[in-house]
């Protein structure tokens, strides 16, 4: 609406301009015309005034000077040319078509003989501008020469019309074009204005005056307000975007931190959504499942899960009743029966809402070692209970014998009491072994080194073992240099280690063979103790494992002999506590040789006195 008014204004203005231009042109043309008439009129009258009188009045047209001059001039506005005598009588007259020279009073004073005057054409009442000059005959005034021209030319406008039109057309076209251009430019401005208005309102700016129409001043003001508003908004948005960027970085950082934590987690982690489709897993999942992470993430469970047990376990998690609780299974991979893998499912519950479940976290853990340890521990318990029950068996039987039959031979009574004593010691020895192992393993056992004479200790071992050796008709040889310097050892522990080696040698020897103990001082103050038997021997494979906890060679010969798989393990721990080493060499059926090498710590002065 505002635009239309502007257009109208423009068109009107352009028309006014055209009119003014036309007016000015007309005025200019009229002036030029008047000037031309004056020049022509003055020139012709002056020229004719000097002409011979006869040549002015002759009726012979071709000889008449007036006719000739008018013809030469060829002024389109020429009205008439007349020669009159002093009484005003026309002596000669030439005129354009339809024109008649009016009667006029001529001046009498000589200074008025040259001049001009306005007359009215008697035929059509048009204004005529008449120039006059005296006509002289023999030096005397004989009459006047009068030449008239029409004042207002008829063709003055019509002749200029095409020029005017040519001039007006571009002006008019320009006006229209300008209008269209302005309209085109203003139209988006109007839309913009409306939009600004709406936007301003939505941004909480006061509404503009309700009157419509373009008000440039107001528009500029509104535009300025709007721009300020927009600027402040942009700044605000900039700050918001900065803080959003910062929080986004923080989020990414937190996510990366969480991912790195899950990646460095010692077990394989797999996170699934509630449809059991994995959305995260760490690197350790690949070797356990035997599938690349690409084939796991985003895949349905029957695609990434090859193992039927695990698949059944995972599919159960689709049930919300199952997935909200912790559950776990243990399975043996089909391609590796030695392995045991545990899978635990932990519900991923939203920290805000206990009823919202994000999915499930599966932790795959290779528990082969734990499983082996568990099995070993179970076997150990079984062995230990057997080992304890065997002496207990004797204790029970002999005490029942003594209780039920009081009238026995003294020999039998003494033997019974000896058996009870020996078996009680055997039990105590086993219990001590167990206690020592648990102390060594928990790191609570510290060596209590004392001054020890190795000769005495080895002799003690020999004496203690002689009973056992006798039952199998074994011969024990002890080779030790007679004068060894005293050593610093934890006497009780070291004795346990040596006892275990010697009792093993006896246990695994065939009846009637021999066991040899050799003590040799080596260079660098080292001592070597060898315990050699001629027993059943240990296979090469078992030799590597004999020092492992609970390990017992899995053959019938070994199974037939009582043992708990702790003696050699304990011996190794004790020797290592003394910064020594223990090794084994054996051949099946030929015998076994255990070698201990340890550094003989020097005896301190105060101890050597003890």
């Amino acid at each position: 609406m505002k635009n239309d008014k502007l257009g109208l204004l423009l068109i009107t203005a352009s028309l006014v301009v055209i009119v003014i231009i036309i007016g000015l042109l007309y005025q200019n043309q009229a002036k030029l015309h008047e000037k031309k008439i004056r020049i022509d009129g003055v020139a012709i009258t002056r020229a004719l005034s000097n002409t011979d009188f006869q040549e002015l009045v002759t009726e012979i047209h071709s000889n008449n000077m007036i006719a000739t001059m008018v013809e030469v001039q060829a002024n389109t506005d020429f009205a008439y040319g007349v020669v009159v005598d002093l009484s005003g009588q026309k002596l000669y007259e030439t005129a354009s078509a339809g024109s008649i020279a009016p009667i006029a009073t001529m001046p009498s004073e000589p200074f008025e003989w040259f001049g001009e005057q306005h007359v009215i054409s008697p035929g059509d009442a048009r204004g005529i501008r008449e120039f006059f000059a005296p006509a002289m005959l023999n030096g005397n005034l004989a009459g006047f020469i009068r030449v008239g021209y029409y004042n207002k030319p008829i063709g003055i406008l019509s002749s200029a019309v095409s020029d005017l039109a040519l001039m007006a057309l571009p002006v008019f076209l320009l006006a229209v074009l300008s209008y269209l251009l302005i309209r085109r430019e203003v139209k988006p401005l109007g839309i913009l204005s409306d939009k600004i208005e709406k936007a301003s309102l939505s941004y909480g700016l006061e509404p503009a005056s309700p009157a419509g129409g373009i008000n440039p001043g107001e528009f500029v003001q509104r535009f300025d307000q709007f721009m300020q508003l927009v600027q402040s908004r942009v700044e605000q948005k900039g700050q918001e975007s900065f803080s959003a960027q910062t929080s986004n970085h923080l989020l990414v950082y937190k996510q990366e931190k969480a991912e790195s934590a899950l990646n460095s987690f010692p077990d394989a982690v797999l996170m699934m959504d509630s449809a059991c489709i994995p959305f995260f897993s760490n690197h350790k999942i690949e070797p356990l499942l035997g599938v690349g992470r690409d084939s796991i993430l985003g895949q349905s469970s029957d695609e990434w899960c090859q193992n039927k047990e695990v698949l059944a376990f995972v599919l159960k998690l689709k049930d919300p009743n199952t997935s909200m609780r912790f559950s776990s299974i243990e399975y043996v991979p089909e391609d590796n029966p030695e392995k045991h893998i545990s899978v635990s499912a932990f519900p991923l519950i939203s920290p805000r809402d206990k009823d919202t479940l994000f999915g499930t976290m599966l932790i795959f853990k290779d528990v082969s070692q734990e499983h082996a340890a568990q099995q070993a521990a179970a076997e150990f318990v079984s062995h230990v209970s057997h080992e304890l029950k065997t002496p207990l068996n004797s204790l029970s039987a002999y005490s029942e014998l003594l209780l039920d039959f009081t009238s026995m031979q003294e020999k039998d009574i003494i033997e019974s009491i000896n058996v009870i004593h020996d078996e009680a010691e055997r039990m105590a020895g086993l219990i001590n072994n167990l206690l020592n192992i648990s102390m060594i393993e928990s790191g609570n056992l510290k060596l209590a080194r004392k001054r020890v004479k190795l000769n005495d200790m080895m002799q003690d071992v020999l004496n203690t073992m002689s009973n056992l050796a006798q039952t199998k008709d074994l011969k024990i040889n002890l080779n030790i240099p007679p004068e060894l310097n005293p050593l610093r050892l934890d006497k009780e522990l070291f004795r346990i280690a040596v006892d275990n080696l010697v009792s093993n040698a006896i246990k695994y020897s065939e009846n009637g063979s021999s066991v040899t103990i050799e003590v040799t001082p080596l260079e660098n103050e080292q001592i070597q103790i060898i315990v050699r038997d001629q027993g059943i021997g240990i296979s090469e494979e078992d030799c590597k494992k004999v020092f492992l906890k609970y390990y017992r060679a899995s053959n019938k010969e070994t199974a037939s002999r009582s043992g708990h798989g702790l003696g050699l393990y304990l011996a190794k721990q004790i020797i290592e506590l003394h910064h020594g080493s223990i090794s084994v060499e054996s051949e099946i059926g030929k015998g076994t040789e255990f070698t201990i090498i340890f550094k003989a710590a020097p005896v301190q002065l105060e101890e050597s006195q003890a």
Partner: protein
Amino acid sequence: MSERILIVDDEQHIVRVFKLYLERNGFIVESVGNGKLAMEWLAQNEPDAVITDIQMPIMDGKELCEKLEEEMPDRKFPIFVMTSMTDREHRTWTDKIKNLLFLEKPVSIRELSRKLDEYFAQT
């Protein structure tokens, strides 16, 4: 008539105490150190009962029982097996053996003597 009992065990003092106790209760007690020796003895003699340990060198108690089942399907005498393996798993092999009784370690020798008396009283 006093019953003959064969004790199969490598632990000498167990054999001794069983012998002392059971002989005083009127049984005739014989003993061998392992399953192989037991089989040899049984090839020659007919006991009224066999008492055997499981862990023994050369031939253990399990193999002895299986051999007896195989080689003497018509045997009449019961086998008393002394065992400390209380769980079922270790006993599955005993299901195949006829006339087998368990003696849980530690064995009460009084209880054993009473069981033998009861057994022979029935037969």
